[in-house]
């Protein structure tokens, strides 16, 4: 039994299915993220936990108590809104004290808790300012403090960093993670930014079309994506459809011309074809002899993009597929191939991660170029 449980929740808006039978169990103290493109149902799920939406079917449990029909003002969770929703007519101190005053705590305790949380979120000295006199990052901290001061059972965050610029967003990501660790509060975080989710989360639920595609740790999501969608959404990935010509020694093999081949670990599934995903950094240029358990394909370099720590090569295979390859720039005299040059690519069979048959994947659009964005 989790600290927060979403149990078979479904929500429709005018016949549009926003959330479709979602079940989640979030243990106490976890940094949990819901990640997905806009319209995937992540915000609706968060708002159901907060109480701003009531599920059409299913239940919401907070600390073991069924709160499905409980109004948001009576739930022991607090939310940080995307637009913050700070009170423009109140000072920072008054904004933060709002929830405590509503709960009619005595003056001394309110003052003490407000002062404490102001230190925690590093807003010292700004108590008497108005929200309009603060920078975006400071407003964000006020929104955080205003929620945290109530010591909620969980803090719900709806794309809270969306309005900040990149530099500040990166700083705040680390700060949020530290804050979560320091306060031990359960964080439920909604974002469409995979890097943000990866940076902070203990576990991530990747959502699409109102359902959870995969719920796992960041490491698992990256290394073992459950679907082509997850593979494409988390990081850059190459999707290749492999025709199974041969099964031997625990490997699936697709034979190509001139002794070239694609290998993947045989997971035991039947089928004529499988889809594999290969991360760009796992593909090497074959300077040496290719090993027994390695894929080997030849292609033509079409584009080279220097990214600093890595160089990204786009390689057009003879089969018509296009692979993204990352070469780590770990040597000063590193020489990259040029566009038009022929290269031989190799990678271990274990790095061809089989994600299922193409039929089961459906119409997933995951060209490596698009996924790289």
């Amino acid at each position, binding site marked *: 039994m989790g600290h927060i449980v979403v149990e078979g929740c479904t929500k429709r808006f005018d016949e549009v299915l926003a959330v479709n039978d979602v079940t989640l169990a979030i243990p106490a103290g976890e940094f949990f993220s819901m990640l997905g493109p806009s319209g995937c149902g992540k915000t609706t799920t968060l708002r159901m936990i907060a109480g701003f939406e009531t599920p059409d079917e299913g239940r919401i449990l907070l600390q073991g108590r069924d709160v499905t029909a409980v109004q948001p003002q009576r739930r022991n969770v607090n*939310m940080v*809104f995307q*637009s913050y*929703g700070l*009170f423009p*007519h109140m000072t920072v101190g008054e904004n933060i004290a709002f*929830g405590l005053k509503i709960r009619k705590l005595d003056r001394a305790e309110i003052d003490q808790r407000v002062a404490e949380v102001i230190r925690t979120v590093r807003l010292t000295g700004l108590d008497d300012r108005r929200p309009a006199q603060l920078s975006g990052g400071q407003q964000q901290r006020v929104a955080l403090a*205003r929620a945290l001061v*109530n010591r909620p059972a969980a803090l719900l965050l709806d794309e809270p960093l969306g309005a900040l610029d990149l530099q500040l967003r990166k700083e705040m990501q680390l700060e949020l993670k530290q804050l979560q660790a320091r306060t031990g509060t359960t964080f439920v975080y909604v974002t469409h930014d995979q890097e943000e989710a990866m940076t902070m989360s203990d576990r991530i639920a990747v959502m699409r079309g109102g359902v959870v595609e995969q719920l796992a740790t960041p490491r698992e999501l990256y290394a073992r994506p459950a679907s082509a969608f997850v593979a494409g959404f988390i990081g850059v990935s190459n999707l290749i459809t492999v025709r199974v010509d041969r099964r031997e020694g625990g490997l699936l093999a697709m034979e190509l011309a001139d002794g070239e081949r694609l290998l993947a670990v045989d997971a035991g599934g039947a089928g004529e074809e499988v889809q594999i995903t290969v991360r760009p950094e796992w593909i090497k240029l074959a300077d040496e002899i290719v090993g027994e358990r390695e894929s080997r394909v030849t292609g033509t370099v079409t584009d080279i993009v220097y990214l600093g720590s890595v160089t990204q090569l786009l390689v057009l295979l003879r089969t018509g597929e296009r692979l993204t390859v990352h070469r780590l720039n770990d040597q000063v005299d590193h020489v990259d191939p040029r566009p038009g040059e022929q290269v031989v690519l190799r990678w271990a069979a274990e790095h061809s991660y089989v994600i299922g048959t193409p039929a089961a994947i459906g119409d997933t659009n995951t060209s490596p170029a698009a996924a790289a964005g």
Partner: protein
Amino acid sequence: MATVGEAVDLGRMRQARRRPRRGVFGILFAPVTLLLVLFLAPMLIMVQMSLVRFPPNVDSGWTLEHYGGVLTNELNRTIALNTAFIATTAMIAMLLVAIPLAYFMVFKAGKLELLILLALVLADELAPVVKIYAWQVILGRQGVINFLVPGEPIEWLIFSRFAVILTLTTTYVTYTTIPIYAAMKAIDPAVFESSRDLGAGWWQQTKKVLLPLAAPGIFIAMILVYIPMLTDFVTSDILGGAGGGTYMMGQRVRDLILQDVDWGSGAALNFLLLSVSVVLALASYRLAKLNRIEP
């Protein structure tokens, strides 16, 4: 070089600063002239009238006796209290309609919002006298309400304070609603969700978030309707009672001038009313500004 460049920049800046002033003068020339001729001039004539002995001639001499007479008159005091009671009650009634209506329009009405706005404007476009007679049809002894309610006709519906207050309320409700609507339009709806999330029920949301944020609009609305009610005489003429309980300042000024031909007292009373209005307007302006700094 740098100094030359600076000098040129300064020159440009000076020009740029001067130009909008000329523009402002051009834009304001016509309205300011109109105000001077049509508003300030008659007002000065009225002030002069309130300060000269009867009959008002060039060599009648100056006096304060009209002000003294108007201020010490027992009847005027009763009328002032009547007027204040009627106008204040009507204003409170208007706010009770306008605040929820404006809230509904801004946050709940959706597509209905523009339709309601249009209806409010149209209701205001009707000639006031037509609206007042319409109320007579509704409230009269043989009117719509008494027709629908069985038994003896209800006497206090018409020719009463009730009738005057009700009619004033409906006459000016547009002017109350629009400024409050405009103030609420500027509120980020997220503040209601965030206050709810922090534990506030609907009353606390209203008291601590909605009303303070809408306050500037509410103050403007109050002043916008209170001043015309102080000088309104048509409503009470047609729907007021015979007993004197609805005799209002506007009627008093009119009667002093047109019936008693006491121009001096009429002008003095009118000038006093104007002074009260200006004081009220300034006070509400102060309140509205204060509110932005300290809720």
